[in-house]
């Protein structure tokens, strides 16, 4: 059998669309592989979308979020509240859970923050302590849970929060965290009980997440 006839045979066979009702076959395989080559949309200037007229029309809580290390942007809508934790979702299956504004879990980002131990962090952000231990959990390549823990130092000062929804008086908290191999700085702007603006580190595969509260 020559190479040419083999190639023709393979081509003919590959072009035939397989069909099934049991989830097997080429269709599902193609869909799976398509995700490998998915491209990214070009970044948009958010202030061109988030205008005062746009904000006036919103009735539901809304957050503007960015992943600067990936060049991704999205709006987040509130899905559910569960005690102190609010679950926010983006359109493409990504969700972000915030415990009183502090990131406690993400889903759908790849390298998600699975959960976090934030009790000391919450006290420190509100000025009740100056140092806190932060524990964050992720999945490794074998789907096993791995921990990263950090010691964080806090600095607070008064600084207004400049957001797309306007300028609000706020307390700015800088959280300087150091772990075994990693170091990052989170920043929060809190006004009343609301996290107006924040820049928080998600994990080594995601980088930072910045959020601005647009609608309460």
């Amino acid at each position, binding site marked *: 059998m020559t190479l040419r006839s083999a190639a023709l045979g393979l081509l003919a066979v590959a072009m035939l669309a*397989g069909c099934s009702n049991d989830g097997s076959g080429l269709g599902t395989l193609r869909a799976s*592989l398509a*995700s490998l080559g998915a491209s990214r949309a070009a970044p948009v200037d958010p202030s061109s979308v988030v205008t005062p007229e746009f904000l006036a029309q919103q009735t539901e809580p809304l957050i503007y979020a960015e992943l600067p290390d990936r060049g991704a942007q999205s709006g987040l809508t509130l899905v559910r509240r569960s005690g102190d934790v609010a679950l926010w979702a983006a359109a493409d299956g990504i*969700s972000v859970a915030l415990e009183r504004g502090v990131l406690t879990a993400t889903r759908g980002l790849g390298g998600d923050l699975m959960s976090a131990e*934030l009790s000391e962090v919450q006290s420190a952000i509100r000025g009740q302590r100056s140092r806190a231990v932060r524990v964050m959990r992720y999945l*490794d390549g074998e789907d*096993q849970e*791995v921990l990263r823990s950090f010691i964080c130092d806090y600095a607070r000062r008064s600084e207004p929060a400049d957001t797309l929804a306007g300028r609000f008086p706020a307390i700015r908290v800088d959280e300087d965290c150091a772990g075994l191999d990693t170091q990052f700085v989170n920043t929060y702007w809190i006004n009343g009980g609301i996290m107006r603006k924040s820049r928080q580190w998600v994990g080594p595969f995601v980088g930072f997440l910045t959020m601005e509260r647009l609608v309460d």
Partner: protein
Amino acid sequence: MVARMSARALRTALSAGVAGLMLAQPLAAQSVWDRPVLNFLGVPGILDMPTAHPMRDADLAYSLSAQSSAIRNTLYFQITPHISGVFRYAQQFDYATTGDQYDRSFDLLFHVAEETELRPAITVGLQDFGGTGIYAGEYIVATKTFGRLRATAGLGWGRYGSFNGFENPLGFFADRFTTRPDQTGGITETGRLDADHWFRGDAALFGGVQYALNDRTILMAEYSSDAYEGEVSRDVFERRSPLNFGITYRARRNLDVSLAYLYGSTVAVNLSYVFNPKDPNRRPGGLEGAPTPVAVRGPSAADLGWSTNSTTLTNLRSQAQAALESIGVELDAMRLEGRRATVRLRNGTYPNNAQMIGRSARVLTNILPASVETIVIEPVGGTGLSGSRVTLQRSDLEELEYAADGSWDSFARARLEDAYPHADLDPLAGVYPRFRYGFGPYAEATYFDPGTPVRLDFGLEAHASYEPYAGLIFSGQVKQRLSGNRGDLPESNSTIQRVRSDAGLYAREGVTALSHLTAAQYFRPGKNLYGRVTVGYLETMYGGVSAEVLWKPVESNLGFGVEVNHVRQRDFDQGFGFQSYEVTTGHASVYYQGNNGFHYQLDLGRYLGGDWGGTLTVDREFRNGVKVGAFATLTDIPFEDFGEGSFDKGIRIEVPLSVITGRPSTAKLARTLRPVTRDGGARLNVGGRLYESVRDHHQAGLQGEWGKFWR
């Protein structure tokens, strides 16, 4: 499953993360030696000579090298941090008057010492210890790193002792070490262990240096003790000098390209690709979208009145079915009581069963009335029977969704038990009888016959299965070959009953082939016991009856099974007819899930050729579903009668598609590679064996997967 915070886990996670984030940036200066260079024989080395450093644990590397005397394909697996195994398939040019020779060889490397400040790394290698002997050699080698420089020196025997050799120093211990028997047994004596040849004959020194010019480029020079005697004597190759020079470029995190000028006479190229199942892609945890969140019940009093209202019950059942279907889970049957809901679920989407259970449980919290506190999930495998019973408390789900230790706590509080006795749940309307079908193109390959590396057939296939009720499955598959050369396989020269070596005849005459047509009944004979009876055309070459019983408690790492088959050989045209050869085969099997992901299986019994013996299979299994394993079978068929290869052995690799794409899928890429397929130690290839479908739902499987329960 315990949360691990070892320095190793952190370092691994971090190094993978750094590489993932910064794709185009160069590797850090120290990390150029993170992974040794793979040489032209596919093992850590310089060019033709080996070095002493191992790859990272679980690294699986494929190398392709080409030079004037041969093209070599090598698969290298770091089985444990101290042991690695190699399977090599080489095309030796102009080996005999018949042309090229396709040679298969296995290596075993023992990394006996790690490099420390004062001590070099030391490795003992057995090259081609059981093949045709073309590459046979043993060595002990040491490598030391000095900043950007790595220096290697070693002592070799066999092929590595052929140039500038001297009397074997081991001759001091016993005279027999001074001589080495020739590999003159001929093709029928290949495949044996040849342990009495090891470290015998003349020894020679070899060595070399590697210098990391920058983060991506490594310069190499070596002094080779391989005289290439065979190749030189056949005039395929000219060896003018023992010195080799080369350069390696690290194109990517896991891809190396090497170029070398060997022996003063030939240019050679090497390409190597490394895949590590523990760190397979840049999106650990997967890319699938967010799961349905838990619906937290309000503090209102739980009303029980709904459980007697049949309209409400019907509505709830269809709502549950629709909601579960939207997340890719089929609801087979359900029972709803005032405080308890029991569901039987079929997973067609998620390779991780704990993830399927977690997502399904959360979907149910959004549908079930507030009084339902206990949710029982019975996952169903391919057999139609529940593999286990997982009991979750709804309050735990509400409490642990965002808890820091939610993963471990949810596992600790869940109850896992045997789904026996079979719970009488009401099937959903329309689920049974279950009819599934599919058709499409197929490609089938056989490997490593003496003539060519791969033979391929292409065609169309159609398959269907019919389940009138849970546990009884009728299934069949028909293939229509359109084109291919598997039928050109030369006729078998086996001197024993041809139970497998007629594969070429089956491929040639089976143009329209009935791959299988079976009726299989699965049942639960008792607690921890699973049973199967399959009747029909069981596989390509055999039809008859197959019966199996498996004992496997949910919480145990040990399982025992007994299988008995009575089969007859099918006609070569793979139609409805049979030939006259009939045989009763059967095995008693022990399955053991060991530590560190190693899985062992021992089968003892009678094989298709009527031969008695046993098979040992050792797999290294990773919790994301990747499996790399090897097996060997020894029976009472003498090596001479078995023929080339001497006994049945091989390696097998399984990679779930989800590991490659990051998206959930139950599809897997699986290959079993045998250097030679002959008639000894041949086992019936009946589908639907119990252990594989049952073990995924038992504790060892679920516990390893539980990290994704909240994913």
